[in-house]
């Protein structure tokens, strides 16, 4: 049974991706008889490359994606190095962990409401400080360089990376490592960077790649905060894919393959950067220096994290405020009146959507967690090391631009007669949930000291008993986090839900995006809040479950 688990997980994860990719490849080389493409050619690629501003779009995707990932990574790592163990660190940990559950679109809307020229910050300052009676004509949201979009992506990825890092941290025994380094004269940041980071980096490397792939191909955040003249590559692909002129599908598919290459290239750039960092780091260590621009690192990372957290939180508060706002004209700091009108008009309609969202997400994460645990346990029992070459396969669902392979998925489910059903949508979500659960769980699992298992075996425990009584409890925190992450991923799915569900499966997210098209800020506020609430609850549960389980365990042990 256990041996089948990896196979099943693979089939569920890669089967649809392979089919979807195939569905991308065919039109990319011009072959789709149903659409009038009878011969294989490079014409779609040439057409794609001839699009005006396509190089700029690609550069935007690459630049914003790399900058956002590097920024988020540097902020999280330096912040942890400088502040771990302080009260500030614990406060940020409490603040940021739940923020991870916030869907990208909601976070982006919150940020836009905050910093746009007619937004909250400008309202706070107007007219007494600025003299503005009308919003100034300043280009902030949608700037051609994508700076605002990069900021939005960073703000959203920081909590994700922070949580991944926190999950990996205990394995590196940071307190004692730092103490030993300090006794050798190392200042705190230098001590952490030299003793802890090298040991936990392998565990957060996969999440970093996922962030990189996501940030270079993001659609929703780019639509809300990104430039439009031209937009980043993935946005243009999505538009072509949805264009009523069906011949654009060929070009879009060719572009989707380019997007795949682009995301891979970003990862390659990152890997080169890793090598460079290792080389420089080694030289730095050999130089024997004991401090690493401590004050600068502390000040920069501390203020960056505080600012990002403040921006996220006030953005979310703004969403809540808008959802109950009556007339609220510039430069009024607060609405003239408050009303529940929007909630009473649309709140009840949301109940169905919430029920559907949960009905899809719960079975998906249950199956995903079971499959991933079974696969990992199988690996543990066979005692084999992880092969590097298979890495890319796990990443396919996270790297291939969604729009491209979901179109192929849609065709697949149509042929299986499963389209428009909750089951099909759940299977579609599984493709995205499985890799994330795998990413979140595999490294902490592998980092569990194998000697615990050996010891249990030596004491006569069966492999099953060792799994249930030793390894699983040791990894319970990672399991709970992975489940919550899986839930959040499922809730946030837009394109797969829309396309595979044929529009008949309405989740909180599909409703939110459809209503957001109308630009009504009250409605955007309501649905963004609802969209956040569900994953929020999941992460709260995840934070509570391990300690509850732990307490029960201890009670069992003391009574036993």
């Amino acid at each position, binding site marked *: 049974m256990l041996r089948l688990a990896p196979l099943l997980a693979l089939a569920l994860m890669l089967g649809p991706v392979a089919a979807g990719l195939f569905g991308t490849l065919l039109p990319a080389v011009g072959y789709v008889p149903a659409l009038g493409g009878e011969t294989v050619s490079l014409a779609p690629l040439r057409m794609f490359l001839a699009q005006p*501003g396509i190089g700029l779009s690609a550069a935007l995707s690459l630049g914003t994606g790399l900058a956002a990932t590097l920024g988020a990574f540097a902020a999280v790592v330096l912040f942890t190095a400088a502040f771990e163990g302080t009260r500030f660190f614990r406060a940020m940990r409490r603040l940021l962990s739940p923020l991870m559950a916030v869907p990208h679109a909601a976070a982006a809307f919150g940020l836009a409401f905050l910093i746009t020229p007619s937004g909250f910050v400008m309202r706070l300052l107007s007219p007494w400080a600025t003299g503005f009676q009308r919003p100034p004509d300043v280009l902030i949201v949608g700037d051609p360089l994508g700076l605002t979009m990069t900021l939005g992506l960073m703000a959203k990825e920081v909590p994700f990376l922070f949580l991944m890092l926190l999950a990996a941290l205990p394995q590196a025994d940071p307190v004692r490592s730092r103490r030993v380094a300090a006794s050798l004269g190392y200042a705190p940041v230098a001590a952490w960077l030299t003793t802890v980071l090298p040991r936990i980096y392998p565990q957060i490397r996969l999440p970093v790649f996922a962030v990189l792939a996501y940030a270079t191909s993001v659609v929703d955040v780019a639509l809300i905060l990104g430039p439009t003249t031209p937009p980043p590559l993935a946005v243009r692909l999505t538009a072509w894919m949805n264009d*009523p002129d069906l011949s654009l599908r060929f070009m879009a598919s060719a572009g989707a393959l380019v997007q795949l290459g682009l995301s891979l290239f970003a990862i390659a750039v990152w890997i080169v950067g890793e090598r460079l960092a290792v080389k420089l780091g080694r030289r730095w260590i050999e130089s024997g220096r004991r401090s690493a621009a401590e004050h600068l690192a502390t000040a920069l990372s501390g203020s960056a994290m505080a600012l990002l957290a403040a921006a996220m939180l006030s953005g979310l508060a703004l969403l809540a405020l808008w959802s109950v706002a009556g007339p609220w004209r510039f430069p009024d700091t607060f609405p003239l009146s408050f009303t529940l009108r929007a909630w009473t008009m649309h709140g009840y309609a949301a109940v169905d959507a919430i029920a559907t969202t949960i009905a899809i997400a719960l079975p998906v994460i249950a199956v995903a967690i079971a499959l991933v645990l079974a696969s990992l346990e199988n690996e543990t029992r066979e005692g084999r090391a*992880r092969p590097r070459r298979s890495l890319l396969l796990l990443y396919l669902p996270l790297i291939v631009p969604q729009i491209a392979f979901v179109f192929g998925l849609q065709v697949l489910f149509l042929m299986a007669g499963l389209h428009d059903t909750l089951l099909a949508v759940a299977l579609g979500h599984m493709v995205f949930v499985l890799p994330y659960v795998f990413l979140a769980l595999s490294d902490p699992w592998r980092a569990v000291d194998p000697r615990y298992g050996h010891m249990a075996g030596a004491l006569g425990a069966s492999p099953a008993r060792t799994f249930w009584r030793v390894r699983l409890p040791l990894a319970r925190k990672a399991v709970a986090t992975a489940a919550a992450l899986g839930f959040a991923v499922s809730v946030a799915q837009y394109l797969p839900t829309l396309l595979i569900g044929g529009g008949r499966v309405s989740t909180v997210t599909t409703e939110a995006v459809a209503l957001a098209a109308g630009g009504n800020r009250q409605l955007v506020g309501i649905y963004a809040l609802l969209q956040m609430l569900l994953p929020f609850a999941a992460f709260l549960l995840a934070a509570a479950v391990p300690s509850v389980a732990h307490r029960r365990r201890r009670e069992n042990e003391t009574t036993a």
Partner: protein
Amino acid sequence: MTIIRLLSRPVRGALLAAALTLPLAPLASRADETVDPADWTEVLAKAKGQTVYFHAWGGEPRINAYIAWAGEQLQQRHGIKVEQVKVDDTANVVARIVAEKAAGQESGGAVDLVWINGENFVSLKKAGLLMSPGWATKLPNWPLVDVENKPAVVTDFTEPTDGQESPWGMAKLVFMHDTATLAEPPKTLDALAEHVKANPGRFTYPQPPNFHGSTFLKQVLATTIADRAKLSRPVDPASFEADVAPLFAYLDALHPNMWRQGRAFPQNQPALRQLLADGEIDIAFTFNPAGASAAIAAGELPETVRTFVLDGGTIGNAHFLAIPFNANAKAGALVLADFLLSPEAQARKQDPAIWGDPTVLAVERLEAAERERFAALDLGIATLSPEELGPVIEEPHASWMVELERAWTARYASQ
């Protein structure tokens, strides 16, 4: 990772083979359903108990509420369940129907009725993806449609509808201004250009290929092109550059003084309306003559907003309901389309407190009681009377929109 290494080479090969052959496998098709709209009794009988999936843009809560009302009526009167599938872009629905066709699904499709017009309709019609033969002219309420005075109800962007879509409402481009900040709005394009020059940063339009943005381009094109008759024919590639030269000269002069210096654009009409509400811009526009009144009633625009049209007329068109070739509930879709054409539903739709969408019917031909429904409507504080709405400039051939959007994007959105 770990799971892949368990795969032997043959298994991997089999997986690949499965992936390659699956898309080519035939699809089990469901029982074909044929309905004849000429036999309305049978249509009603077949429709009873059906669920109609009505794919309609879901970005406007007022419209969603109106569709929900229609659904309740159909449930009560004919035992038909209506489910609105709220789409954010009708092109997605076209994509869906195409995907079904590609998968060989000839019946039992996901889309029963779709709210559509223009290039989306032309795409589906040309690809043979609509229910045929034409059914709209056989609906019981069809004789009430004002074909004589509203030619757009049978010609969608110069494409004959051939009864493959049923008119639902009329649209006409009207401009909005806030009298609190701009008392006398410019009534010609030249006056608009002067106003923008004198008031930098206070005008913009949604970014083409957004529908409303493209409509603004067409409005300028129809006003500036030397020979307007050319617009009713497909684009002539040889003369296209010359035809649109005055349009782009106009925009080149306009952009530097526009909102964000023309380096960013709102992405749709509600976003444009929001900019007007925020006081970021002086002038916005909408395709719904009662849209401003409805937005004022909903608290989305200040009460000081009024509408106006340009001298010489503005672009107008109609929007429609179409049934895909493989719709699962064709009978139910026919009944819904007919109900939405009824004087009762059309009058309710025209009420700005409900939606404010102009009727496609010839009101003067209705029975007295039904005429009264329309006469009793308060069209709203910011709605122009039919006389004030001025002449209609008909939609150019659909190919103009495609070429305009391409040329605009190359010129303004890729550097």
